[in-house]
Structures are given as C-alpha cells and as structure tokens.
C-alpha cells in the first residue's frame, strides 16, 4: 500500500497549460460556491432553511475544477452534498437557495429539497441521497452516450465513505468492462458523517486503492487545487470521449463545516481544521493568480459581483412565496398526476 507523505497533496501531477480566462472562471466559480454556501449556512441558522443541508465549504476546488473541464451537454450526478456541483454547472443561486428554503421559486419548487437538486437544463441529472445509488445510474447515462454515439461524458461525484458500499463496486466493474464514458470523482474529505474514513476502510486511499480492482489507473490528486483538478479531469474526459473508458479520481480535500446542518464537528482532532484552512482552496487560488500577475482589483471585482448575485438571490428567495400547494399531487406519474387507479 502506497503511503502518501503530505495528507493534502496528490500523488499524480498533471502537466498542461490553462488559459487565463479559464483560471478566472475557476476563481469566480470557487468564490460563488463559497459565498452561496456560506449564505445557505446562515439561512439554516436563521431557520429559513428547514430540514437539512450539506455544505462543500472547503471542497470548492473539486466542483470548480471539474465543472470548468466539462462541456455543455456533459452530465453531473451528485450526492446530497450537491449544492456546489449544481451551482458550478451554472444553475442560478436563486434557484438553489429557493429550493433549500422550500420556496416556490426553487429549482424543483420544494419537492426535492437540498439533497435532490436537479437541473436537466444544466446537465445536472440529479442529486442522490442514498449513498452509492447514483454510481450505477451515471453508468447508465454513459451507456446511453456510448450506444447513441453521443459525445457527452457523465461525471459522478461521491465521498470517501461511498467507496465501501456495494453499489460502488458494481458500478466500477460495470463501467470498466464496458469502457463507458463516465468519470468517478471521489471527494475524500477524510470523514463519513462523523467517523474518520480510515477507521472503517481496509486501505489508506478509499478510492484510488480500489482502482486496480477494476483495471483502472491509480489516481490521487490534490483536491484543493482547482488547476490540478481541472487538468486531471480534462484528461479523464478526453479519455472517456476517446472511448477509452472510465476513470476513478480520488481528490484529497476537507470540509470546513460539519457534515450537515449545524453539526459542530467535534469529532475532529484539534488543529486539523486549522491546518486545512491554511490550504483553503479559494485563498490559495487567489494568491496564485495574484502571484502570476492578475491584478487584485480584478479579483475583488469578481468577489463583489458574486456577492451581489448571492445577495440578490437571497432577497428574491425571501420575497418568494412558500411552495404553492397545487403541486403536491403533480408529477408522480408521467401523465402529470398521482392517480394510480380508475
């Protein structure tokens, strides 16, 4: 078993160039995810978001880097921790916050909730709340692309914990056998809900150390570096589009917030969060851009623009009516209703 030396650094170094525009876009995306999710957290504490909410604070580089490497038409399959990936594909903040708040302006008008964000228009084919369930589903979408000769790739995001459930194994084998154009992105944030992944996993790298079981390359990357994510995913997409089959990419990252809702995450050893905050993906990306000559004012303007978007979205959601009752009985069946008998 390979031992990693720095917990935060990946083992596979990519080597391509990224255009300045792309990098600004990735910065904007990371800032957007950060601000939108911080807002979601505040709204939860204000009891304006009920139920639950799973944030990706600290994991923005994975979502931004992947989305930046995707083409329109590519498909995303997310988990309950799906706000970031949904926003990164271009779904408006208002729609996402509206859904979290159970408002009529929400992405699914409140019928799905925070764990099921779906926007087919943006290629977000759903967020799945049963751990592992969407890996086979993503295979199915990729199978359709292969069957129809479509060039889209399906991306399936999941956590370290999901690598120990049966559906993971079945999906990986199925995808590898059929060389499906699907990319499996394991966001290893070190924890399941509250239990460290290492305590319940037989290998050090829950994703990468399983790759060989499916004849796949072992890939572990620094998931807090959007450039690394972007380059690695670009390669995986190219491979998928070339008919060379799936990839399994383990992104090392960390969630700054608790698992869900207001979880204070007391199970984390002291200092751990601080060490990871030093590797905060948003700040390191900003520093890197500045170091490479991007004017601070440009980056400030992006942040300000994002703040306006998030503020406006919040206001719009607060003003929106709560979900209208007429949709309670709609869309159970394709005929639009819920009647199961004559």
């Amino acid at each position, binding site marked *: 078993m390979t031992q990693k030396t720095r917990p935060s650094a990946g083992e596979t170094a990519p080597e391509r160039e990224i255009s300045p525009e792309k990098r600004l876009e990735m910065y904007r995306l990371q800032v957007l995810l950060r601000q939108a999710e911080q807002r979601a957290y505040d709204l939860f504490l204000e009891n304006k978001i009920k139920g639950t909410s799973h944030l990706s604070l600290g994991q923005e580089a994975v979502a931004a880097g992947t989305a930046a490497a995707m083409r329109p038409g590519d498909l995303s399959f997310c988990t309950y921790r799906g706000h970031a990936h949904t926003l990164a594909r271009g779904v408006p903040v208002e729609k996402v916050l509206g859904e979290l708040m159970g408002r009529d302006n929400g992405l*699914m008008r409140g019928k799905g909730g925070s764990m099921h964000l779906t926007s087919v228009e943006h290629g977000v084919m759903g967020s*799945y709340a049963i751990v592992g369930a969407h890996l086979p589903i993503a*295979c199915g*979408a990729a199978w359709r692309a292969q069957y129809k000769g479509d060039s889209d790739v399906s991306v399936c995001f999941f956590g370290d914990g999901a690598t120990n459930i049966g559906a993971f194994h079945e999906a990986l084998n199925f995808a590898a056998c059929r060389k499906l154009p699907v990319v499996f992105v394991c966001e290893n944030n070190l924890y399941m809900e509250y239990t460290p992944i290492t305590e319940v996993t037989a290998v050090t790298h829950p994703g990468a150390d399983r790759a060989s079981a499916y004849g796949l390359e072992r890939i572990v990357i620094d998931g807090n570096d959007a450039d690394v994510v972007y380059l690695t995913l670009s390669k995986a997409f190219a491979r998928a589009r070339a008919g060379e089959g799936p990839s399994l990419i383990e992104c090392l990252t960390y969630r700054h917030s608790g698992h869900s809702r207001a979880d204070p995450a007391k199970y984390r050893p002291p200092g751990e969060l601080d060490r990871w905050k030093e590797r905060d993906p948003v700040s390191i990306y900003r520093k890197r851009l500045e170091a490479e000559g991007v004017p601070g004012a440009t980056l400030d303007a992006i942040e300000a623009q994002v703040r306006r978007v998030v503020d406006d979205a919040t206001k719009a959601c607060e003003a929106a009516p709560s979900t209208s009752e007429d949709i309670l009985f709609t869309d*159970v069946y394709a005929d639009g209703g819920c009647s199961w008998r004559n």
Partner: protein
Amino acid sequence: MAQLTYREAVARGIAQEMARDENVVLLGEDVAKAGGVFKATVGLFEQFGPKRVLDTPISEQAILGAAMGAAMTGLRPIAEIMFADFLGVCYDYIANEFPKTRYMSNGQVSCPLVVRCGNGGGARFGAQHSQSVENWCMQFPGLKVVSPSSPVDVIGLLAAAVRDPDPVVFLEHKSLYAVKGEVPDGEILDTLGTARILRPGRDATILALGMMVPRSLQAAEALQAKYGISCEVIDVRSLVPLDTQCILGSVARTGRVFTVEENPRQLGWGSELVSIIADEAFYDLDGPAVRITTPNIPLPAADALEDLAIPSVDRIVGMIHRSLTA
C-alpha cells in the same frame, strides 16, 4: 394466429418492441448469448446483436442503476432480474430511485424502463427462488406493477410497459413459462391498468393474478359443477395502475369477494384490494371479504410441501364454498 408458449411470448414481445424502437435495449444476466435462464429471451441476441442485448455481471444494482440512467437520458431499457426474489439485492432502485425521481425533480426527469422478473413458485426451488413479490413493489407511488397470466397478455402488456413513460415492474410467472396460448399475428398492444373478466358470474367475485388465474378458473368451474355456485373470475393483471372500476363493478354485482394470492398472507396484494372494497363497496358486500393465500410460511422446497403451501384448486373451491354457505 399461432400457438405460443408464455416464454416465447416474452421473446416475441421484446422483439416486437425492439424492432419498433431502436431505443429499446435489453440487459441482464445470461439474457444474451444463452437466451436467458428461463429461455425467455432466446433469439434476441441473434436478431438484435450485442449492442442492444447485453449480458451483465452478477450486479443487480448495476443492472437496475444502469437501466435507470439510460432511461433518464433517452433509452427504453428492459432489465431482467432473473428471479424476482433477487429484487432484494437491488431494492433501493425499486423503492427509492425509479419511482421518486420524477416527483423529486418536479417533472424534469423521466424513468421509462421495464424490470422483468421470473416470479412465483411451483418449481420446487425453495424459499429464495419461488416468491411472489407483487407486494414488494406495489407500495411505491410512481412505480407500476403488472403481471400477465397468458401468452397474449404477456406480449400486449409488455409492449404497453415498454412504451409507458413510467417505470414498470413486469412479473412473469415461472410456472407459466411452458403454458401455451393463442396469439394473433401482427403487433399486439394492450393497456396497463385494465383488469379482465375471464369468466362472468353472479354469486362471488374472484380476484386473481399470475398462476392463480388458471387455478381460479378451474375452481370456478368446479364450484359451478359441484355446488351450482357462479363465480366471476377477474384477472387483475395490473396492480398499479389498478382497474378499480372493473373490480368494484363486479363486487357490486356479486356481493362477495375472494382474492386468490400466491404470496404469504401478510400484506399480500389482496389486502389493498380488499381495503378498497371494504371502504368504497362496503354496502355492496353481502358477507366477509376472504383472502385465499399461501399461509404465513416461507416456501418449502419439497414438492409435497410446496403443493400444500400454494393455494390449490381444491383449497380455493373449499374456502369459497364454505364461506358462501356459512
């Protein structure tokens, strides 16, 4: 017109739909080159090739999950889960994924697929390969559940299921695979959600499904011949959607109802039907609603025991006669 077996009808129904729509694909364990464990997909691989007819690993979650992802994005998959009992290893898709995705997405996502299974007992396969699993499937809003009892219904209902925009569980009865029936030439298309009165009657309504349909018909004949009791036999065919009109109409005419269910008693499909009748047709009923089921036991393997467990013609006759003359 041709005489086809129920298993040949499955293959013909699938072939009809695959020929009609190139988005229809078939996947499952041993369904392609080997033609299926029940030989119900013989010839399809040869006719439609490896791209459309896929042998899969023993990965039921991958089978149903892949079918779902494909259905959501434009294909019309038919997935075989060999024995219906194996729905246990991929039940999340039946319970949590297929039926809920349209609603949760507020109508954005469709899931038009068919899950075919070999269902039911009588083959001496024991407790894990003989179950009638209608009652594992019918409690999920969004999911449809169909179970044909004759070759012609197999084709027509399978075609309807494939064309249906909602997910459908299609339960083929293992002990009927060898049964023959008349099948007209040309395209056959039936309608989900329609029951069929196979034998009109005045004194009681018998509601049956799958292998219990021929047994109920035989029982009805015996009841007529032996006791002059006239039973109306309804092949329910489709549990979801349910043809409540047909069922309630019949009960209104006869005043008595019996379900004949292959599943063990507890929460069999008949309980829902009886509960509808006990509410909406209460004043039509002239006596107790009686459920004739496998008793509260797993199915034993030995032939002598299995025959005692599943409702037999004699048991049906006996229970109906006793109840009507009590």
